[in-house]
């Protein structure tokens, strides 16, 4: 328990991932669903950086592929948050609600 290994970080990442999944599946407020998606992406980033540290131990000090991947994921998350919030604003302007259940205009 006391010596922190890669597995500790992976378990923490899995816990955050589960919290994000629960948030996405159960909340009705679109903004909070988007924030849960950010939580999921952060859990993935934690996994990547933990693996990068592990990989660095095997393949030498310059094997930082996990960290580079994590930077790209953060960039991706920024782009996705911007577009998602743009969609949210466009939707809110039409329907005056941020309830996920009301996004049903394409239902037959």
């Amino acid at each position, binding site marked *: 328990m006391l*010596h*922190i290994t*890669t*597995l500790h*970080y992976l*378990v*923490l990442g*899995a*816990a*955050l*991932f*589960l*919290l*994000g*999944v*629960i948030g996405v*599946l*159960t*909340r*009705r*407020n679109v*903004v*909070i669903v*988007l*924030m*849960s998606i*950010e*939580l999921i992406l*952060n859990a993935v*980033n*934690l996994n990547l*950086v*933990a693996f990068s*540290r592990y990989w*660095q131990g*095997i393949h030498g*000090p*310059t094997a*930082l*592929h996990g*960290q*580079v991947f*994590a*930077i*790209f994921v*953060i*960039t991706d*998350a*920024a782009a*996705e*948050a*911007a577009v998602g*919030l*743009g969609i949210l*604003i*466009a939707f809110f302007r039409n329907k005056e*609600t*941020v*309830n*996920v259940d009301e996004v049903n205009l394409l239902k037959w």
Partner: protein
Amino acid sequence: MNPAGMIPAGTNPPVATPFFFYLLAAIMVVGGVMVITRKNAVHSAMALITTLLAQAALYLMLYAPFVAGVQIILYAGGIMVLFLFVIMLISIERAEKERQFNKQWLVGIVAAAALGGLFIAVYTTTTKGRALFPEGRMTYGETQNTQQIAALLFDRTAGQYMFAFEIASLLLLVAIIGAVVMAKKRI
């Protein structure tokens, strides 16, 4: 002499690493729980900011200072400001009085629990008595972290991610244009 800042495996790290890991992990988990349970979206956003900052500190513990810096600037200082702006521009008081959790909450939690079980099953597998990610290797310090990441991105011979870097910048351009078009009143 320690040119690459190598720390032999098994020696004690200089600061109280288990204490800080468990403290930061507790902050992150509590923050995550608050994100998905708060009625008020601003409270959720602030809990998420706390989680992100604790995660940046965890990145520092993993000897990844550049990723920690990027996390603080982009995630906590950029994306969350965007979230807070949007929450404040759409008046969200009516959303607070509605029911917060949808009708499928039980199914959602069961699905997440199944996923959790899968994680536990994977993380506790041992092949031939060896755990999944065995320890016992040299670890390196972080005095050249930015330069090494730059080498992976930009170096002529050793860099592999130049194309991904250019695609990421194109992606950001498309996202900017898309967000502006989405949020305009009349196209």
